[in-house]
């Protein structure tokens, strides 16, 4: 739908941005209109974030210009950009956990604290809250808020500072499906009020549902622009990846072997010392994928951590191939064959300042040929890293690049490369395809399938129900640290899963399913 009120607010003309060894943006032209939501689409490393960072004043472009309402502007910092009405919500939020919402918003004003009137600011926040139908409690502390609510605070912060162009970098990657729908409504509301909205996303469904226009980048260049109404998911995927993308994977029937990973009445606490896992019992067999669904924060992270030795088990037992591995060290867990793709990639999965090569060898460095006795063979390390970079198509393919400079999707590929190579029987995968483009998502799912075929037991923890339904053999739903039910994927509907995610145990349903969910 083309909005008659839409006017061009910002024009990017021939934006070029080079990094050592990569041309991240190559003469990109882009028009940004008020009253519209523009989706920016492209493969991992295509240059989406970079382009938006240029617009938001984080990077100086090496070429090209930015026109704001027809006037040439130059931003030297994010502050310049926001002063001109352009603000960006980054993937990693920049909020102070120990302060309240209102205080965080004041903080971003960075003006003289003496002249501030907290009450007035709170009132204004409430006003904006109402106007955009985006409930935010100004007195809540950030640490009390869910990820979705924190994101609202970030958006509020920009609105408060008078942003008229709002950029959101993969905003839905961290949201539950419900939160994503709410966000879509808020964004639509803001667009109707005359704001110009840009979202970066890899989920084609969202592009189709959220946006008015789509622009596709590939290898730094703009290759196509569409009115959303006049295109399709298939066309977008083809343009973006340059080939046809399968949305359906051929799934071979699951022939589960013997039980490999088994939990018996496992209990554990979270950081605040409250119960996070309550009497968890299940098993994953050889050659089987068990999907774990649930709203974020219902024990998924803790579940992955107890199995990989990162969190203490208070009660109960964990068995691998019949061997008791309860409360083993992380190293013992690795040695026994557990790979773990963590949910928090920068915080846990990577050492951002170390080069790609060192990050790739974080598990393999203990063994020959990379080490001999005490010594590290740098040449072998490079060979190992180059191999993985090639197999998993990590760009830039330069082992010396610090991991923090990789695009989000390439960081995820790096972790996958390392963990899948280290795999020896069990993979705990937390959001394995978060932040990946459609092509890469497809290949991750294929890889997990291949691993399954080879007899690996996979525990797939994800908030993306579509992903779970697509590749799991059985599905388990967690709610407040308890198992609501375990069922064959074929035997359960999305509605039933939703009910379980909201806290309804499976036994209460009027359904003939095995009550304990344990297979033998």
């Amino acid at each position, binding site marked *: 739908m083309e909005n008659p009120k839409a*006017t061009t*607010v910002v024009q990017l003309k021939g934006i070029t941005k080079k990094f050592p060894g990569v041309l991240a943006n190559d003469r990109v032209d882009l028009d940004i209109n*008020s009253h519209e939501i523009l989706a920016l689409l492209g493969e991992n490393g295509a240059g989406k974030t970079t382009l938006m960072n240029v617009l938001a004043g*984080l*990077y100086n472009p090496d070429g090209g210009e930015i026109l*704001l*309402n027809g006037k040439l502007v130059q931003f*030297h*910092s994010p*502050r310049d950009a*926001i*002063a*001109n*009405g352009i603000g960006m919500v980054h993937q990693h939020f920049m909020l102070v956990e120990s302060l309240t919402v209102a205080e965080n918003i004041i903080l971003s004003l*960075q*003006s003289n604290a003496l002249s501030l009137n907290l009450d007035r600011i709170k009132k204004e926040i409430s006003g904006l809250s109402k106007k955009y139908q985006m409930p935010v409690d100004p007195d809540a502390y950030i640490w009390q808020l869910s990820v979705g609510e924190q994101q609202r605070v970030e958006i509020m912060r920009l609105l408060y500072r*008078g*942003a*008229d162009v709002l950029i959101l970098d993969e905003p839905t990657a961290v949201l539950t499906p419900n939160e994503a729908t709410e966000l879509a409504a808020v964004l639509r509301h803001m667009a109707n009020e*005359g*704001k110009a909205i840009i979202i970066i996303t890899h989920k084609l469904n969202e592009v189709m549902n959220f946006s008015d226009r789509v622009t596709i980048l590939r290898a730094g260049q703009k290759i196509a622009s569409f009115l959303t109404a006049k295109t399709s998911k298939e066309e977008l995927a083809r343009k973006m990846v340059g080939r046809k993308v399968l949305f359906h994977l051929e799934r071979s029937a699951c022939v589960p072997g013997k039980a490999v990973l088994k939990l018996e009445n496992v209990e554990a606490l979270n950081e605040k010392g409250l119960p996070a896992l309550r009497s968890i019992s299940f098993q994953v067999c050889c050659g089987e994928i068990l999907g774990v669904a649930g709203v974020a924060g219902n024990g998924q992270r803790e579940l992955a951590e107890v199995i*990989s030795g*990162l969190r203490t088990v208070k009660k109960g037992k964990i068995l691998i191939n019949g061997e008791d591995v309860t409360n083993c*060290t*992380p*190293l013992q*867990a*690795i*040695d026994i064959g557990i790979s*773990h793709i*963590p949910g928090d990639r920068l*915080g*846990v*999965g*990577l*050492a*951002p*300042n*170390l080069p790609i090569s*060192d990050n790739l060898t*974080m*598990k393999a*460095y*203990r063994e020959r040929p990379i*080490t001999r006795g*005490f*010594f*590290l063979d*740098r040449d072998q390390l490079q060979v190992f890293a180059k191999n993985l970079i090639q197999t998993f198509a990590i760009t830039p393919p330069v082992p010396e690049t610090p991991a923090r400079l990789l695009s989000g999707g390439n960081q995820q590929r790096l972790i996958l490369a390392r963990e899948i190579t280290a795999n020896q029987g069990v993979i705990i995968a937390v959001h394995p395809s978060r932040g990946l483009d459609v092509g890469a998502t497809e290949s991750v799912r294929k890889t997990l399938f291949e691993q399954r075929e080879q007899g690996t037991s996979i525990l797939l923890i994800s908030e993306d129900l579509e992903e779970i339904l697509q590749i799991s053999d059985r599905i388990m739903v967690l709610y407040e640290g308890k198992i609501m039910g375990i069922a064959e994927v074929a035997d359960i509907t999305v509605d039933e899963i939703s009910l379980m995610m909201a806290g309804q145990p499976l036994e209460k349903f009027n359904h003939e399913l095995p009550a304990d969910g344990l297979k033998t």
Partner: protein
Amino acid sequence: MRISFEKRLEQSRLSAILVPVFSFVMALIFGAMILLAFGVNPLQAYTVMVRGSIGSSYALSETLVKAIPLMLTGLGVSISFRMLFWNIGAEGQLAMGGIAAAFVALFLEKYLPPFLVLPAMMIAAILAGALWGLIPATLKAVIGVNEILTTLMMNYIAILFVEYLYFGPWRDPDGFGFPGTAQFPETAWLPRFTGRIHFGIIFAIIAAALIWFILNHTKRGYEIRLIGQNPRAARYTGVNIGRNILVVMLLSGGLAGLAGMAEVSGIAHRLYSGLTSGYGYTAIIIAWLASLNPWGILVVAFMMGGLIVGGDQIQIAMQTPAAVAQVLQGAILFFMLGGSIFANYRVRIIKNLEKSKSGADGYG
């Protein structure tokens, strides 16, 4: 109008070179003002300083003599800083090394064949420093006690213990009441090259090479760097953080202990009050100025030695109070450390905050 600091996303290579140079110039200008305030001609003072620290072979050798303990302790603290273990205790570890070396030289020398005296002193000193460092390391690794406090407290214990020894039981009976032990027998003296430059310089070079090698070419070094960059990732990939703390502190404390041995055996030939004159603290500054790079630490320690020796020269040659040289040294360090912030941050002067909203008026 306000001034604000903004982190540079892209570090310019130019600023990496210009900033230290600029900081140094600023330090000299500021120093000149101090000197003027004391009625000293700054140009003359700087000339004296340069001449006194590197202007002659004697000056050079004195500078190196000061640099040796700084190099060893600087290397020691740098490796613990690499893995974010804040060892502030090099001073105490150095003192314990000196005590151990003195013990061997004073009381065991007569039982040892002459060629074993120095090796025994070295081993004793390294062990003493390492064990002294191991105490806070164990407390941290096992029950998580903050190492900044414990290493600092251990300094006071060690420093007072040295004083107790040379004022008390180990005091030289023929020393006319001066604090200090008796002179060591000659078999316990570190050989000298020229001037007072002693064998400790070789220790320092070997230590730098060793640390460089460990960090870049061993499994342990890989783990140390990983812990330093992201402790959570290290734990997740199965690195035993506690064990690394213990190993690193053995090394760190051992090097400081060796520095103590080199001081007593290479310079004073006795345990005396000059041993604990702050090398262990200056080492922290050196490690940072050199960005923890082992070869860089050798260079920075040499420059720091020059600053100390040159400062003394101002005092001697120009009859200024001792404090002037110290204020000057402090100012130079202050500017050099302060300057490093500009390599990573950009200063912006923001004129008018309210104007900022006007730009957005055009649409909305």
